[in-house]
């Protein structure tokens, strides 16, 4: 029983947390690719920017959340989403739009976005410093311990307050995006432009509007992902940057240009990472008596050590590119 609790805490909850963050990040990457046809490497730093905005606002008004009973950081999230969306549209106007107007190859856009990455990271470091800071400025991070009503269940299921917010906000964001893409006129036009840009133009769809809407959505989602990640651990200027690889792996696993695929890909990569570093010894321990005597279980029976977690999305990426380059849901191939 205790082994099962250990599994829930270390795989089910941890995997869902990682998966949700990857999924929200990957949706943004995949939307940008489907409309502008380039891999936006500055996406992770847009996530950091969103979290940084939350940090600034929370530091400025630390007690704002207490009045309505939510952590101040969560209260500030919508405002940070707006600011990040404005930043995203501004970055596009200043850096990507001139490149598009020149009709450059996608790789030039990718390199341009690398430049934006460096600028954003430098800018955030300039103001935030390099050390970790908690987004819980005034509030206390609640930790819920749910004891199981079984005999002999000693360890409780542990879930923290930001993790609960993470799950709720992820579900809300995904459902809202689904309705936007499948019901609204703009959302359908976005899908149309992703399918066939020339025909979209011939139908009278203003492609500049669609590009702006894409940046607003990608920026807003980036702020959500960055903030929820920083709430779960702490805010650091390079925290999201190290998620760039798994987020791109998630987008490619799901099929680039496919928002639902990005969600699936996010959870596939998130759970794969978590399962790879999980200590399987714990689950095998109860069956020790029935195992052959010569089989000695090592104390740590994980596929890879925690410090090598980052190789997992890398291997998934290589595997999917070799065997199914269009991803689980037939997507486009990044060129």
């Amino acid at each position, binding site marked *: 029983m205790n082994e099962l609790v250990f599994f829930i805490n270390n795989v089910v909850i941890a995997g869902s947390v990682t998966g949700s963050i990857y999924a929200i990040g990957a949706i943004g990457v995949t939307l940008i690719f489907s409309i502008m046809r380039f891999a936006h490497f500055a996406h992770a730093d847009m996530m950091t920017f969103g979290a940084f905005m939350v940090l600034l606002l929370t530091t400025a008004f630390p007690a704002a959340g207490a009045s309505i009973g939510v952590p101040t950081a969560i209260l500030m999230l919508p405002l940070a989403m707006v600011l990040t969306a404005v930043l995203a549209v501004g970055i596009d106007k200043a850096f990507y739009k001139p490149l598009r107007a020149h009709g450059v190859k996608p790789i030039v856009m990718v390199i341009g976005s690398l430049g934006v990455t460096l600028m954003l990271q430098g800018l955030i470091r300039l103001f935030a410093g390099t050390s970790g800071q908690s987004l819980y400025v005034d509030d206390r991070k609640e930790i819920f311990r749910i004891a199981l009503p079984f005999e002999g269940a000693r360890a409780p299921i542990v879930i923290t307050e930001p993790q609960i917010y993470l799950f709720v906000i992820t579900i809300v964001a995904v459902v809202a995006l689904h309705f936007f893409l499948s019901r609204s006129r703009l959302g359908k036009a976005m899908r*149309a432009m992703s399918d*066939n840009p020339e*025909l979209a133009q011939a139908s009278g769809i203003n492609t500049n509007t669609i590009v702006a809407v894409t940046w607003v959505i990608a920026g807003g989602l980036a702020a959500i992902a960055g903030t929820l990640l920083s709430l779960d651990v702490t805010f650091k200027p390079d925290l999201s940057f190290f998620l760039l690889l798994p987020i791109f792996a998630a987008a490619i696993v799901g099929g680039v240009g496919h928002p639902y695929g990005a969600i699936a890909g996010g959870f596939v990569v998130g759970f794969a990472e978590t399962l790879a570093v999980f200590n399987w010894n714990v689950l095998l321990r109860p069956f020790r008596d029935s195992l052959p005597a010569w089989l000695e279980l090592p104390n740590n029976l994980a596929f890879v050590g925690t410090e090598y977690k980052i190789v997992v999305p890398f291997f998934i990426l290589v595997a999917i590119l070799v065997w199914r380059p269009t991803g689980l849901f037939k997507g486009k191939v990044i060129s």
Partner: protein
Amino acid sequence: MSSTQPQPLLEARDVHGGYGSMNILNGVDMTLYADEVGVIVGPNGAGKSTMLKAIFGLLNVNHGEILLNGQPIHNLPPNRLVERGMGFVPQEKNVFPSLTVKENLEMGAYLKPQNVKRMLEQVYDFFPPLVEKRHQPAGELSGGQRQMVAMGRALMAEPSLLLLDEPTAGLSPLYMNEIFDRVKKINAAGVGILMVEQNAKQALAIADKGFVLAAGQNRFTDTGAALLANPDVAKSFLGG
């Protein structure tokens, strides 16, 4: 043409144009009235599709002029031409494959969302097979049904002139006749039609006006029936 004729829907005078500065069209003239079906035929490389693209603003017109309802339109971008009542159905990639049939049609009326409901009914009237398929992604349809979606999408904007680039390319004879049948019906509903066709005989049979192009110039221009009856046209362009 007598002077009592109403203003032509489309008029092209001595059009030269092509990709960049290289001309594929070397002086094409065309006049089409609102109640007419015009068909452009001719050998490969004669500039048939190029002429259609030049009218829809997809490539450069270097000399000459194109008028829509008497207004010059050459070198206007496609989205402005949609606003002015022109619809264009490309030969290839003419649907949004991941969007459903209904969503494809809705995109056609993107600039006039208030008309969607009324126009959907009208398009389903023209193409009854689409009603049943309306919630299916357009990419899963057969070639003939996809052509119907493409034409339906263009019709959703209530165009006064519909340009069709080889609407029957790659279709079975059964579907070909069905498409030509729809073209006549759409025309009867008040939409001028100009189409490029490889199936020249069948197309000229429904044409009020036929334009035989060769090497980027008009070779013969007459009614469809007269062109079919013309032994020179038959010998050189319709395979005897």
